[in-house]
């Protein structure tokens, strides 16, 4: 009984602290939704808007590393000293291509799991997080697919049920205890046999997390808008390099209707190279770097190693 009362006092104390002084842990409640952004699979890699033949299955395995550096509080200060985080995650992803009404279509499912560790903001060390992010489910459809001219327009719908690892009493979690949905539009075109480009826009919608840190607070978030673009050069039939941009906009967060300084305002440059080792096995390496961030961690260096197997 005393233990229960003690936990209640701690929880109440945290709520009061959050409401009155906005300490760092309170301000970054919901941080997990901002870190490890590279782990969201609707973040496309080059050629992902090109439909593969009906019946094709892909298994993709990713290892993603992110070294996060500075932290900025929205329009507030940017902290550099004793600030950073290390993200190490793996992604298991399955994709199936099919046809609906004569158009290419398909579905996919993926799961992210791993760790966010050594996180400090302004010298204040935050908890390490281990576990799984929310499961991701998606269906995609090509209303327009012109294989002769290599022009593809894709639409994808994503759903993230709140299945990820979540503890409302710690700041950083891999799961975020809320439903999310995302609607994505993508266009891909090849001009000649060497050059192609991909452009994507997606909007992520968030339900409230009604059990946000430090417990029983409501975290709400405006939709996040994202632009992605790649220009690709295919050197040989099996080897391609790409240069890309990814920008996040919006996503202002509120904790119990008070803005907490977090939002999704991030601009990232990406470089990738991919190579088919066998006709069914491809490896891809991506390096990326945030050029500007407001309302979250800035990623100094990101690396993705992806292995794709078609079956």
């Amino acid at each position, binding site marked *: 009984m005393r233990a229960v009362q003690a936990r209640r006092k701690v929880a109440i104390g945290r709520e009061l602290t959050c409401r009155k002084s906005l300490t760092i842990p309170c301000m970054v409640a919901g941080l997990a939704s901002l870190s490890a952004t590279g782990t969201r699979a609707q973040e496309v890699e080059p*050629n992902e808007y*090109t*439909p*593969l*033949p*009906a*019946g*094709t299955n892909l298994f993709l395995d990713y290892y993603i590393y992110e070294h996060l550096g500075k932290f900025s509080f929205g329009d507030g200060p940017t902290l550099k000293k004793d600030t950073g985080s290390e993200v190490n995650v793996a992604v298991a992803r399955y994709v*199936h291509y*099919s*046809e*609906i009404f004569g158009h290419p*279509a*398909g*579905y996919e499912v993926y799961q992210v799991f791993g760790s966010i560790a050594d996180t400090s903001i302004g010298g204040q060390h935050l908890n390490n997080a281990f576990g799984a992010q929310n499961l991701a*489910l*998606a*269906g*995609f*459809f090509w209303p327009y697919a012109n*294989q*002769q*001219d*290599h022009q593809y327009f894709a639409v994808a*719908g*994503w*759903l993230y049920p709140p299945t990820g690892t979540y503890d409302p009493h710690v700041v950083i979690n891999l799961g975020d205890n809320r439903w999310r*949905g995302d*609607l994505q539009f993508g266009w891909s075109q*090849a001009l*000649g*046999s*060497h050059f*192609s480009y991909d452009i994507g826009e997606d909007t992520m919608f968030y339900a409230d997390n009604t059990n946000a840190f430090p417990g029983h607070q409501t975290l709400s978030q405006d939709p996040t808008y994202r632009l992605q673009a790649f220009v690709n050069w*295919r050197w*040989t*039939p099996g080897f391609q390099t790409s240069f890309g941009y990814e920008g996040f906009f919006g996503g202002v967060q509120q904790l119990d209707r008070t803005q907490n300084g977090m939002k999704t305002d991030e601009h990232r440059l990406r470089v990738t190279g991919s190579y*088919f080792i066998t*006709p*069914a096995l491809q490896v891809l390496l991506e390096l990326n770097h945030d050029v500007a961030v407001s309302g979250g961690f800035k990623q100094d260096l990101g690396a993705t190693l992806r292995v794709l197997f*078609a*079956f």
Partner: protein
Amino acid sequence: MALALLALAGCQIAGEAPTATTQTGANGEDVDFVTNAYQLIMFDREEGALATSEAMDPQVRALAAKMVTDANQLAAKLGPLAAAEGIRPPDILRYSLRIRLGHMRIQNGLDFDRTFVDDQIASHQEAISMHEMMAGSAGSPALRQLAQEAGSIVRGNLRQLQALQLEMMRR
């Protein structure tokens, strides 16, 4: 939306089969022949259609167009014969052909002529052995007759493909 698409996709997946099916107990050799013939017809159509816009060599374009026409004519004859035997043809490509076609799509025409000719020589050689096997089988007489007819067309196309391959190697 995602759920709706998933549900639709699920319905579609249930019908996906790379092999022909029969509910009337059709001869196994007939089922194999229909499976393989449809696989190669679907592949020739898809790859041949890409050749009309991708191929650099006019000879490759012309031969691809002829092969698409041949594939369509063969499909038009094979469909009713398969139905008469109670055989439902496959509706997706088998694994090896899916992989080959997938590469053709993402390569955007790079080195298309050479890849196309190599692919088609392999598929025509497979078709010839399939037709020979069917002709000597104890299967449906109508399907055996079709195999013989198709065999001579496929041999003619194969000779042209091999001549093109030789020409490409000399360049």
